[in-house]
């Protein structure tokens, strides 16, 4: 690859973003300067016209300055013999240059350029301190700075200069010139900087667009259109409107532009059509692999959930990568992040303070995706540093808005309100339109709508059974939409989305919802959802509610499973709940106990927490998918095909009834049996396991949803955490404490961030920020809970509702009262209202909390023998 000139080594990482010129002024060094009163800031912020206007607007000011200079010259006796035409000339020349409004700015600046180059001017300026004070100004721009210091040192012999003075005409620093060129460029939509022929005599560059392209690897003729991709345009044509061609890789910029369009639209239909447009182009021009990459990048995933690939990139890594890629200081980036709250925006607006030797070639969708996978694969020693290197390599190659979405993707949140359902809809629409286009058929109006709706329904139901784009997309492209269900169906080994349950407030609500249909009530166990896949005899995998592979976590379950399978079961998919149990007392233990189990590499010998599987649904048996069957049938087949063993593998407690009293009694029974409540499922009507039709087919009745059962507490706000995302600028979470009158301490009990409306959150921020204290009061008992970002003086009492009480090793509330060492914390605390009638001393006391905890325990039948009777 030949290289045009060293000039093209230089390209600022983040050129000014054309759509938001006003957003970046404070990052543009030139604009910062208070001394550049003329034309400086407009040069960077606006287009050519704006700039010339501003220049001329500053004229009176200049004239004023000129008069002043003259006046000063006259006053000064000692300077009288100095030909005052020096300054006059300078100022006059400035005026002359500024005046012609019609002149394009670049020329204007070029005209200014010779100012300091002329040795005569320099010499005469040395002679006159006053004139020196006119032209030199402290710290104009960092780039200029260099030029200036140089002149100060060489020619001006370090004249003392005080204050800021007008320097309308600066020696045209190459920096300014480049900035100027950049803005001009944006007006005419050419990428990459224009080479500076003026200050680079050896440059061999010509001013043709091809030569301007600093990256030698791309020399496509349609380079200009590369940055012009509008997936939201009307009359979008998948081939003509795309900014790439068939068989060429998709530029990542196309996807970034799609994200940008999605982000700036709030209507779901609009978002669907934007994404659909992009996907149509991908379908028409690119390979299935690129479609998969695009879909994954859109969902910000690396692969199907069960593969468990994670980027493992924290904010720290991103900041370090940004530091490395832009040369900005870590502190500056952190400060800005604190203000802006979105690291994507910070990255996008980060102007590079470090030049590059050579601009890397443009990113492609496939390359970005494979780089992300590489990043995810780094493990072990110095993997963080390797990640930083990879990310910064990606960052320097970013153009335009690419930075924002790349960084957001890396940070784990794309935040463009793009749900998986929308992506599936868009994909189905795109495929549908693509198929019609290819077959030459066309449909309009109702017919088209119907076709598209069927397409969406087909794709969604297939995806629910087989949530793996790497299988669905190739099949979709090869077999077409209609045949898709034949090729992609429930496969043991690939977890499907679980059916979820909707919370209800009481029995009356349940009857209203199911409307006479026959229902089944089951205990709702307090454990972990587990989808058990028997792929073949002896080959078992267990997946979580989020399709993560948990096989390694439950070797005991897998070990015992063959004993529970019926003789005729070769393969199956079971839906179940895994619950921790106390084998000695033969009772269930709460969910928190289950979470203390090791997650990975559990060996059978070292298992301390025993578990029992409560099976409640069967989705697949011996090669046949049962998701389209009714619950009555699925439940029956399940209960016939497995052999329960007490304490190891049992079926969930079930009662088929529609009598209110029975249900009430069953509900109370479930609580006594250490369960959370009931699951209510219809037996025949709407009773399939088809998530795509209704993902909330089931209802749940939990004790804390029932009116009056949840406990409310009055707690003191002692700290808060900075909000991120939507809550940027406000507090995102709060640290609450109860009061212990014995020790006169506020004991931290929990964090909460739910139950607030946006308005409440903002109001609380405005109230609480006046009570921020630099360090926690000595009478705050903090335990080992994570320190909040700000501390508050104890002023406000909030009413908080909690689902449950639990022992906590980190929160100190009521420590010693319920348990010798551990304190008590709340599960699912949510804000109800501000208790203005209560003072912090009136807050719920530790003693009360201990009491609530004990009464909860006695309800659930667990007698805590360890409570310190000897304590009081």
């Amino acid at each position, binding site marked *: 690859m030949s290289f045009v000139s060293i000039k093209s080594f230089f390209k600022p990482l983040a050129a000014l973003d054309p759509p938001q010129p006003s957003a970046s002024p404070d990052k543009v*060094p030139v604009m910062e300067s208070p001394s550049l009163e003329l034309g400086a800031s407009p040069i960077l912020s606006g287009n050519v016209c704006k700039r010339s206007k501003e220049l001329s607007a500053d004229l009176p000011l200049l004239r004023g300055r000129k008069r002043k200079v003259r006046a000063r010259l006259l006053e000064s006796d000692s300077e009288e013999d100095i030909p005052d035409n020096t300054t006059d000339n300078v100022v006059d020349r400035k005026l002359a240059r500024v005046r012609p409004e019609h002149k394009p700015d670049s020329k204007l600046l070029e005209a200014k350029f010779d100012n300091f180059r002329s040795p005569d001017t320099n010499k005469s300026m040395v002679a006159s301190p006053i004139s020196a004070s006119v032209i030199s100004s402290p710290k104009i721009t*960092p780039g200029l700075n260099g030029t200036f210091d140089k002149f100060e040192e060489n020619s001006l012999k370090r004249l003392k200069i005080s204050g800021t003075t007008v320097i309308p005409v600066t020696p045209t620093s190459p920096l300014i010139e480049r900035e100027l060129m950049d803005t001009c460029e944006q007006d005419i939509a050419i990428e990459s900087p224009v080479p500076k022929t003026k200050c680079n005599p050896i440059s061999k560059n010509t001013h043709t667009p091809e030569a301007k392209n600093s990256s030698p690897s791309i020399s496509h003729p349609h380079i200009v259109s590369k940055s012009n991709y509008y997936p939201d345009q009307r009359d979008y044509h998948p081939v003509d409107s795309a900014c790439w061609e068939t068989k060429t890789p998709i530029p990542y910029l196309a996807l970034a532009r799609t994200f940008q369009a999605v982000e700036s639209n709030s209507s779901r239909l609009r978002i669907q059509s934007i994404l659909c447009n992009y996907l149509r182009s991908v379908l028409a021009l690119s390979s299935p692999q690129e479609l998969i990459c695009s879909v994954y990048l859109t969902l910000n995933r690396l692969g199907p959930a069960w593969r468990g690939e994670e980027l493992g990139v924290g904010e720290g890594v991103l900041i370090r990568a940004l530091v490395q890629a832009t040369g900005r200081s870590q502190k500056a980036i952190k400060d800005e992040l604190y203000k802006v709250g979105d690291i994507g925006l910070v990255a996008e607006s980060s102007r590079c303070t470090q030049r590059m030797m050579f601009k890397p070639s443009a990113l492609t969708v496939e390359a970005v995706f494979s780089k992300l996978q590489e990043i995810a694969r780094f493990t072990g020693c110095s993997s963080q540093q390797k990640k930083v290197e990879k990310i910064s390599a990606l960052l320097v190659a970013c153009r335009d808005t690419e930075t924002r979405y790349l960084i957001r993707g890396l940070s784990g949140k794309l935040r463009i309100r793009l749900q998986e359902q929308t992506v599936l809809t868009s994909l189905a629409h795109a495929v549908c339109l693509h198929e019609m286009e290819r077959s030459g058929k066309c449909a309009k109006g109702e017919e088209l709508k119907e076709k598209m709706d069927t397409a969406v329904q087909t794709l969604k139901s297939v995806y629910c059974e087989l949530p793996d784009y790497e299988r669905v997309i190739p099949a979709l492209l090869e077999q077409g939409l209609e045949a898709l269900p034949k090729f992609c169906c429930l496969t043991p080994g690939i977890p499907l989305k679980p059916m979820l349950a909707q919370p209800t407030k009481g029995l009356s609500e349940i009857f209203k919802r199911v409307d006479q249909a026959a229902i089944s009530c089951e205990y709702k166990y307090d454990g972990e959802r587990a989808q058990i896949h028997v792929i073949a005899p002896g080959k078992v995998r267990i997946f979580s509610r989020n399709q993560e592979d948990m096989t390694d976590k439950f070797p005991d379950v897998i070990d015992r499973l063959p004993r529970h399978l019926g003789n005729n079961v070769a393969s199956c998919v079971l839906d179940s709940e895994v619950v921790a149990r106390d084998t000695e007392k033969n009772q269930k233990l709460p969910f928190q106990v289950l979470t203390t189990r090791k997650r990975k590499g559990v060996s059978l010998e070292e298992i301390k927490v025993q578990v029992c599987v409560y099976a409640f649904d069967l989705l697949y048996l011996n090669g046949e998918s049962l998701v389209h069957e009714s619950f009555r049938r699925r439940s029956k087949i399940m209960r016939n095909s497995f052999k329960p063993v007490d304490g190891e593998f049992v079926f969930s407690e079930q009662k088929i009834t529609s009598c209110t009293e029975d249900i009430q009694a069953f509900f109370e029974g479930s609580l006594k049996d250490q369960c959370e409540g009931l699951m209510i499922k219809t037996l025949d009507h709407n009773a399939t396991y088809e998530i795509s039709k209704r993902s909330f087919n089931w209802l749940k009745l939990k004790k804390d949803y029932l009116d009056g059962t949840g406990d409310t507490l009055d707690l003191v706000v002692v700290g808060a955490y900075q909000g991120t995302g939507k809550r940027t600028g406000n507090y995102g979470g709060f640290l609450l404490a109860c009061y212990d009158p014995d020790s006169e301490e506020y004991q931290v009990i929990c964090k909460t961030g739910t139950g607030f409306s946006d308005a409440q959150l903002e109001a609380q921020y405005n109230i609480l920020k006046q009570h921020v204290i630099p360090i926690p009061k000595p009478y705050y008992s903090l335990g080992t809970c994570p320190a909040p970002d700000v501390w508050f003086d104890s002023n406000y009492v909030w009413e908080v509702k909690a689902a449950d009480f639990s022992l906590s090793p980190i929160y100190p509330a009521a420590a010693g009262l319920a348990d010798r060492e551990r304190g008590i914390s709340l599960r699912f605390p949510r804000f109800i209202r501000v208790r203005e009638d209560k003072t912090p001393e009136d807050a719920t006391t530790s003693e009360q909390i201990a009491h609530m905890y004990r009464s909860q325990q006695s309800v659930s039948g667990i007698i805590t023998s360890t409570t310190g009777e000897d304590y009081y």
Partner: protein
Amino acid sequence: MFEARLLNGSLWKKIIESIKDVVEDANWECSGSGISLQGMDSSHVALVSLHLKSDAFDPYRCDRNISLGLSSTNLSKILKCSSNDDSVIIRTSEASDNVSFIFESSNSEKVSQFDLKLMNIDSEHLGIPDMEYDSIVKMPSNEFQRICRDLSLLGESVQIACTKDGVQFTSSGSIGSGKISLRPNITAENLDDTVNIELNEAVLLTFALRYLNFFTKATSLAPRVILSFKTEHPLVVEYQIQDIGYLKFYLAPKIEDDDTKQTTTPD
């Protein structure tokens, strides 16, 4: 077939250690004229250009131009297996996807061979134009290393000002600032200790010390370092490897902005 034997094997070690922080994966281009390497760091801020003449090797055989894609980290691991007075033979054939490193002790009693798998690295070869620099500073390489190391205690970047009076290195950070000035001295007893400044035009440029500290790992390769400055252009840090080649580092300057201003003002 490619074969190159370098009697002074420790030179390889020194070279790899000097470049491995800057260039992770690079293609070693072997041709009739010698072995050269060009590569950039992941941020594209620094560029390494290395050339070793074929005369440096005995024997040197290169039937056809060949490009060896190697990871610097792995190369460094392999070369650490050699003793300092070993001679090093690099050998590969066109068809092979391995490159062999053969270390032969000076008394020929011990021969060790390590094969390293070649990688496919896509890199663009950049033509670096010759240009006239505004000022060229020649100074003892250990002095330059010292300056970079000392100043990196204070700040992240160094401002280098070359004037006819001398060259000044300045750095500042939250704890304070430091300034080191060198005056040209041509009268030093040892020729290697002199500081020469060829000045066409005064320059003032800012560079990230992080990279300079990577570059100065090459100090052991040469007693002298040549710094070439040109306003708005990359700095060239050049080490002459005896009379058999050179190792040049290019570093793009920093653009000072508000951030750096902030950090330069003490808190």
